[in-house]
């Protein structure tokens, strides 16, 4: 079986808190056996690095604020790439830091977690991903736009799912994700409401959810 991985899979796999999706991701990877894991070029070379970069900046902003109460959060040049959820994240980190009893331990932990994150994700890709598919510049614009209509404003998901559909045309695959809300069979079927796309991609990949892994 060829599994096309959503970006969430490696991130869940890298965690160590016993979150139910983390456990499912570990189970899914442990049962890999002869299955192949595919990652699209968009996730591998753009979306994951961008997300990891934002995580580093989140840590930078947190460390700056903790060391200097006068520091204006998000006043650094690099923090411009943070999205609103990231800013909420930084504020939440500061809140739980303030509430923490052992502040030194908290600082050690947060820095260790963020430092390990990138290494674990890179290691996951190196060890478990068999192939990177569909170069970013080969993503079918019409297909991506069709998906984007239903996923607006999530351009990332539109590019990722378009990559999966295109790769499925090359050789059958199954998408694996934890996003039950947006990555649905119904969404994929919308592609067939466009006659050009239906002709181009007569077969659509199946979707499996991490939640349902056994």
């Amino acid at each position: 079986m060829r599994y096309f991985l959503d970006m969430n899979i490696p991130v869940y796999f890298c965690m160590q808190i016993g979150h139910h999706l983390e456990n499912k991701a570990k189970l899914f990877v442990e049962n890999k056996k002869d299955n192949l894991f595919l990652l699209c070029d968009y996730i591998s070379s753009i979306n994951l690095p961008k997300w990891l970069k934002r995580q580093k900046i989140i840590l930078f902003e947190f460390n700056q604020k903790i060391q200097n109460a006068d520091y204006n959060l998000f006043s650094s040049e690099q923090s411009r790439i943070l999205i609103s959820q990231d800013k909420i994240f930084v504020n939440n980190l500061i809140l739980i830091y303030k509430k923490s009893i052992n502040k030194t331990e908290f600082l050690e932990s947060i820095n260790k977690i963020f430092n390990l994150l990138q290494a674990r994700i890179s290691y996951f890709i190196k060890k478990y991903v068999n192939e990177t598919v569909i170069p970013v510049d080969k993503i079918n614009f019409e297909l991506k736009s069709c998906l984007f209509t239903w996923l607006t404003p999530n351009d990332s998901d539109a590019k990722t799912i378009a990559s999966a559909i295109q790769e499925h045309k090359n050789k059958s695959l199954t998408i694996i994700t934890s996003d039950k809300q947006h990555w649905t069979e119904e969404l994929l079927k919308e592609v067939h409401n466009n006659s050009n796309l239906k002709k181009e991609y007569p077969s659509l990949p199946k979707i499996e959810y991490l939640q349902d892994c056994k």
Partner: protein
Amino acid sequence: MVARKTPEQIKKEILDLLFEGPKGINEIAERISSNWPTTNSYLDKLKEEGAVNEILITDKMKVYRRTDDPVYYSIPFNREIRTKTLFILREIDKAWKKERGVDLSKTALQKLAVDVIKHCNLNLPVLSFHYGLTTCASFDSSNQSILSLIEEPENKEEIIICIKEVINNKEHTGIAYKERDYQYRKYKMPFYLAKEELTKLFLFHEKDKETNKEMNLKIQKALLELSLNYPLKLERFYNDFEKFISNSQIILSTRKNEAQNLEIIKGTLTHLWDKLTTFTSFKDSESFIDRADKQLFEQIMDLNINFKEMTYQTQVEELESAAQDSDPFEINMPKDEASNNIQKLILESLESK
């Protein structure tokens, strides 16, 4: 009739002129009232003698400097800045010997001079150099050629009084590492203090040639301290810094090839530090550069930073490669409640993508 200048006179004129900082051939020729070919040939001779070298070579120009230019990186500070700074350094050197009866180390001399500049509110550059705040120039009491060019500034008396006050401060011991420590605390330089702690640990390791879990943990803590105190003004290098920290922490946590990997970490830190402090030194200098020399200043800065960048990249690749030999899943994420909350927040932010 005007007497012709002897070759030695011309060479001395060129060297005296280059005391004002690096200069292109055209400017040198104009200032010594000579033509381009003659000036060029004298510069070639001086180069053969090892008295000058090219600091910049482009298609259109060559810029020369004295090989004994006392100013760090040969930054084109004007004559007044150079001579005043050297005057302060010379006077401190003399006064210390007189007061305390011993020679002053180069590090300590710089630290005292910075205090004089700051204490007296002298409008002179203070650079965030690799061993903390320094003046813009080094001082060599045996270089008569440079010493002979130092002029006494107008506010000489004021400076001498200030030097006395600084030397009388018993916090100044003249011992290099104590002077660094005193300066870092006095001027609130936690990033430098954290680096100093790391350097000390590396030194202990070098002495003992032994690695143990305790030493490893101490280095990890010192790296964390360095991260926590990373200054905002260096944010353009944060990516490099973060790469250094995360790879080092992984290497230290897995404890593979400890002695060899510790050397790689140490080497990378040295190159990274050099790159960071080269940048800060130039940034601290910027506002003291005369408008006419701004372009030259930028060129010298780019040249230095690009060079440091190149050497750093080679080193950091070695560090990354050492870190990639480790399995990061062998290192446990912290398991306390706060760590769980942090990881949960990471996942929440991912889910709300």
